[in-house]
């Protein structure tokens, strides 16, 4: 057995184990971490296929950004695990059916005329070949216009998101510290001159008497 094949089987085994643990782990944090393991193994498989750019992107985007976000959400939300696991096995037939359907679809595509392994043979690239570099070269030469446009679309996304969320709510109450510090005595305290003793009003007294009785 070639060493490459050996590495493939090791990575594939770890990946399958990780994927199984994602759905069988009791703790959602563990499940998310096993998903990270699955992604890492998948990235290793990409590397074996000489697609190092996809491997790096998978790690940076999915492991670095998406899964961290996911972990935050999992940790912040109070997930009732007992309720989630209720009737867990009753979903087996549906899950198995969907799984089989996906396998069948994949077989149809891979065995078909256009996308089969025979129609798209792998190419062994020379040793110094870098597909990251080739992709970058293509993006920054031939596709530079759509690439820049995509960045403008992202900028609009940022502007729109800030506009829609960063606003002063009408019902919010917050302190203005500078005004609080600059306050003068006469703005807060009002001295009222009044007699030390005062006769209680007659009507109020009678009302109180009636209330007492």
């Amino acid at each position, binding site marked *: 057995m070639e060493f490459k094949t050996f590495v493939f089987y090791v990575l594939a085994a770890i990946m399958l184990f990780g994927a199984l643990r994602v759905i069988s782990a009791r703790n959602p944090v563990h499940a998310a971490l096993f998903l990270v393991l699955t992604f890492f193994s998948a990235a290793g498989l990409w590397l074996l296929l000489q697609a190092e750019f996809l491997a790096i992107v998978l790690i940076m985007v999915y492991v670095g950004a998406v899964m961290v976000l996911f972990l935050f959400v999992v940790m912040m939300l109070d997930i009732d695990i007992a309720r989630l696991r209720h009737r867990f096995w009753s979903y087996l037939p549906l899950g198995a059916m969907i799984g089989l359907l996906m396998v069948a679809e994949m077989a149809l595509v891979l065995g078909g005329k256009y996308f089969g392994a025979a129609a798209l043979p792998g190419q062994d690239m020379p040793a110094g070949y870098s597909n990251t570099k*080739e992709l970058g*070269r*293509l993006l920054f*030469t*031939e*596709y*530079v*216009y*759509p690439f820049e*446009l*995509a960045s*403008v*679309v992202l*900028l*609009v*996304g940022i*502007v*729109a998101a*800030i*506009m*829609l969320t960063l*606003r002063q709510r*009408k019902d919010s109450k917050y302190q203005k510290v500078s005004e609080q510090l600059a306050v003068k005595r006469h703005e807060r305290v009002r001295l009222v001159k009044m007699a030390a003793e005062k006769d209680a009003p007659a009507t109020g007294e009678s009302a109180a008497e009636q209330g007492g009785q």
Partner: protein
Amino acid sequence: MLKNFLTPDLYPAMPEIFLLVMACVILLVDAFLGKAQRWITGALTLISLVGCALITYQTMDGQVVLTFSNMFVDDLLGDFLKLLLYLAVIVVLIYSRDYLVARQLDKGEFYLLVLFATLGMMVMISASHFLTIYLGLELLSLSLYALVALDRDSPRAVEAAMKYFVLGALASGLLLYGMSMVYGATGTLEIGGVAQALHLGVANKTVLVFGLVFLVAGIAFKLGAVPFHMWVPDVYHGAPTPITLLIASAPKLAAFAMAMRILVFGLFELAQHWQSMLMLLAVLSIAVGNLAAIAQTNLKRMLAYSAISHMGFLLLALMSGVVGPDRHFALIAYTSAMYYVVAYVMMSLGAFGVILLLSRAGYEAEHLDDLKGLNQRSPWFAAVMLALMFSMAGVPFFVGFFAKFSVLLAVIDAGYIGVAVFAVLFSLIGAFYYLRIVKLMYFDAPSDAAPLAASPDMRFLLSLNGVAVAAFGLFPDALMTLCTSALLRSL
């Protein structure tokens, strides 16, 4: 191929580059401005648009120039539409200023998103690649979704934005799916390349027609044609009136350009297929738009349904371009389509401008009853609204009449007499709701006697708008000649 890559010629794309740079400058400047200096943002926005217009005018040479690896095309059609686009956006900004200030909606983001939407429309207008069409469309749509929700405290606006966003995403998906089908069949996304592959007849026809259905559905959604019109009344009604004004005017020019680029420049060989699809859409739009508009009591909703019927007319013109191999008919039909869309944008700007004119702080003049007795309050603006409504209804010697007339001529030339008769009949039905507004303005007592509070520049521009609708109706040839020459040099 990559080894000998040449730096793309940036000259044809100067207006886009200038606008993007200015938008980024305004983004930075606005961050340092207080509420009282917001006028600087507005002024800079107007300056950018005027600058774009100057650059476009300078670089207009009537030649078809492709750049950015054939993804960008600079032709006379694009230049002409872009100039109209800047004009429409400038008018929108001036009409909406008072309204926004009165409601404290004149945030810097409004101006920025309007600029980015303009950039998206410019990209769509001069796209010669499916990828750039899609990216331009997304840039436009994303800005518009956010703009509809500009007034975050209004539940109606947020609901409209949500609806627009979900349906718009669906339409973008349809469009992309269609594009992927075309790519699968022809092996290229370049519009010229697609046309060539079709001409050589190497592409799989079934896959192409399948993709075409999705492309037409996407275009129909963006134009707001029946049965993809559901978003139009809700968005027009729910959005703040300045945003409605924006959505109802400039994007129609871009959608027209998109339809021309995809259907005429790219998939002309499939014309017999998309012709029947467009006819169905057009007939349904004219019928549903005109009938539903009668039942509306809200002015913005009524104008939304009227927009649907107008888009039906536009589709009629696009449909009647192909009669055998003769290119003469194609020119007549596409010229009438372009004339129609320009005329519609002019009328639409004016009609929503009048709504903005009548609104003031804390008061929305969006019901039909709010127009009652406008003649007694301001005879001049009642006359402007009269011209706009007559023009929309297609009463002779306003610009709308000649637009409808030229479309009907093209339809008859193409041999669809029945469709032409149908369109005329429904225009007559449609005249009812336009003339009802005239009746309300001139023969009813005013329900609201407050004097009109609009700034002088808006009054001037709105007057000019009304005069233009009448003047282009009296002298239709000037605009028609411009449209013809723009198309002749680009087709």
